[in-house]
């Protein structure tokens, strides 16, 4: 798969202070999550890719286009939903989105048509003629999404799209993002400090900390790997024999305290077979868990590693 975003020693500084430090990565997922604590550089990375900040050194490519030499072409492919409230309060929703679509290059009639469509799509069809200043917070977030997709971008930047939303509004926003992702017409970059948002919407994640890449992983691969990783709690005659029997089946095993066993299943081995072996060895399997190396684990591990690296320095 062609990379969506390539970072090549990207270095961004504000007034001499390094904000993004020599970032190098190739992001290929359909939905890429940008994770990191506040001040990690997520929004700066998005703003740099949009051409708002000039890299101090290094370069980046978005859908194969260099952000230094082709910023206009890059922005032509992007839809951007910013983190903060961004609209013109006195304008009606549909007029605002139409203007934004026209600025993206759509002819006036098509822009109007797509502004209406986008408003219906994000669930604001009934309020599209109301001034944006009268919208609730959730409606404003949806209106921001509408302006980001109205011109049919190839890549969508969503900066904290669920900020300040109540649970139903958040669920609706996540559902919209998932729908857009699943249609497969565009790629999306979701920047958030909420792990759950990223976990629900993204298949790849880039974790930033203090302007460095703390981790870059494919969530889909992680999920597949997690499916083979089990934790058992067993009771019975001899755990040692049970472990030997499991190893004969090709499992990698490790014995923990209080009858706990960790194991990695080989490809093709069904879990049913574990119960058969346990029965043969007169062992009871009291509990069987798929060990879930959740995004939270990945994130915390990345944070620890980053701190250890910094401490080492």
């Amino acid at each position: 798969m062609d990379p969506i975003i390539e970072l090549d020693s990207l270095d961004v500084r504000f007034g001499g202070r390094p904000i993004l430090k020599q970032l190098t990565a190739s992001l290929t997922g359909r939905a890429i999550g940008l994770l990191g604590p506040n001040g990690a550089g997520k929004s700066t990375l998005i703003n740099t890719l949009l051409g708002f900040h000039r890299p101090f050194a290094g370069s980046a490519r978005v859908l194969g286009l260099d952000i230094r030499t082709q910023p206009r072409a890059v922005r032509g492919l992007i839809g951007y939903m910013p983190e903060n409230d961004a609209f013109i309060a006195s304008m009606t929703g549909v007029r605002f989105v139409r203007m934004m679509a026209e600025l993206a290059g759509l002819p006036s009639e098509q822009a109007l048509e797509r502004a209406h469509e986008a408003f219906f799509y994000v669930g604001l069809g009934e309020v599209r003629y109301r001034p944006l200043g009268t919208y609730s917070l959730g409606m404003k977030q949806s209106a921001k999404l509408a302006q980001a997709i109205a011109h049919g971008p190839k890549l969508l930047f969503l900066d904290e799209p669920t900020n300040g939303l109540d649970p139903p509004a958040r669920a609706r926003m996540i559902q919209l993002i998932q729908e857009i992702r699943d249609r497969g017409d565009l790629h999306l970059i979701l920047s958030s400090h909420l792990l759950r948002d990223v976990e629900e919407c993204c298949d790849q994640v880039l974790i930033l900390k203090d302007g460095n890449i703390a981790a870059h992983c494919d969530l889909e691969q992680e999920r597949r790997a997690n499916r083979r990783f089990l934790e058992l709690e067993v009771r019975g005659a001899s755990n040692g024999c049970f472990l030997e029997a499991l190893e004969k089946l090709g499992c990698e095993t490790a014995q923990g305290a209080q009858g706990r066993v960790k194991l990695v299943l080989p490809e093709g081995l069904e879990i049913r077979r574990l119960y058969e072996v346990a029965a043969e060895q007169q062992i009871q399997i009291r509990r069987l868990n798929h060990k879930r190396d959740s995004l939270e684990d990945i994130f915390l591990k990345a944070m620890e590693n980053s701190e250890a690296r910094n401490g080492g320095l």
Partner: protein
Amino acid sequence: MAVYKKTYRPYEGPLTAAWSRFLVIRRYAFEDLRRSRFLTVFYLATFLYPLIAALILWVEHNTSALKLLNLENTSRLIAVDAGYYMTLLGWQSMLALFLAAFIGPGQISPDLSNNALSLYLARPFSRSEYVLGKLSVLLTLLSWMTWVPGLLLFALQTYLEGWDWAVAHARIVAAVFFGAWVWILLIALLSLALSAWVKWKPAAGALLFGIFFVAAGFGGAINAVQDTKWGYLLNVSNLVGSVWVQLFEGDNPTSNGAVFFRVAPGSVIPVWVCWTVLLLLCAACLYMLSRKIRGAEVVR
């Protein structure tokens, strides 16, 4: 696709020319301005003076009208020369300042206070195009009330007086056009720069007047205290007046400028200095705009 399908779809249709995108900003700004009844009435009122000036030209060349007014023995009703056009430009330019103070502050400040710049500039649309779009709103409106009526009156006078008159007064065409542009470009840039830096519209409008009147008063005070003429450098209308006199009458002026743009006798500042100060003022406005018109504000 109908809206009831409520689904996302990519756009594959035609795109407008990249150079024309700034016109979108202009069109939407005009739509907003049209909603103000006060502005519409004021703008229409600014055409009264040119209409009266046109009427005078027509009366002067119409013997029946002169007879009706018992003026058939008068050699000339008014002298249609550089002074006539400079006076017209002076009145219209003063009205242009009021218009710029009224509409200029509302151009950029709403976008800044609503954080909308990140949305404008996240599109294939540059900062210069944004400023050009906003500037073109003011320049179009101000052009229609300054150099356009000036040139139309010149054309009318040429039609009534004959080609020889036009040839003899050809300098006026360039003077009206460039003289008006010096003024409208300056006040458009100033009002946009203030709009970008002062978010409260009435304050930005007041500040624009302050630059012209308070600074002029301050300059006058400097002249009086220091017994110098260089205080006039703070008097923008004085600077513009000097430039106009040169444009209309060359190096041998017979007048000292137009209404509101008079150059005080004995205190003429070299024209090149006036040009330099005006250019510096424009450059300062562009710098102020470049500092504020950004997709993302950098907190250092």
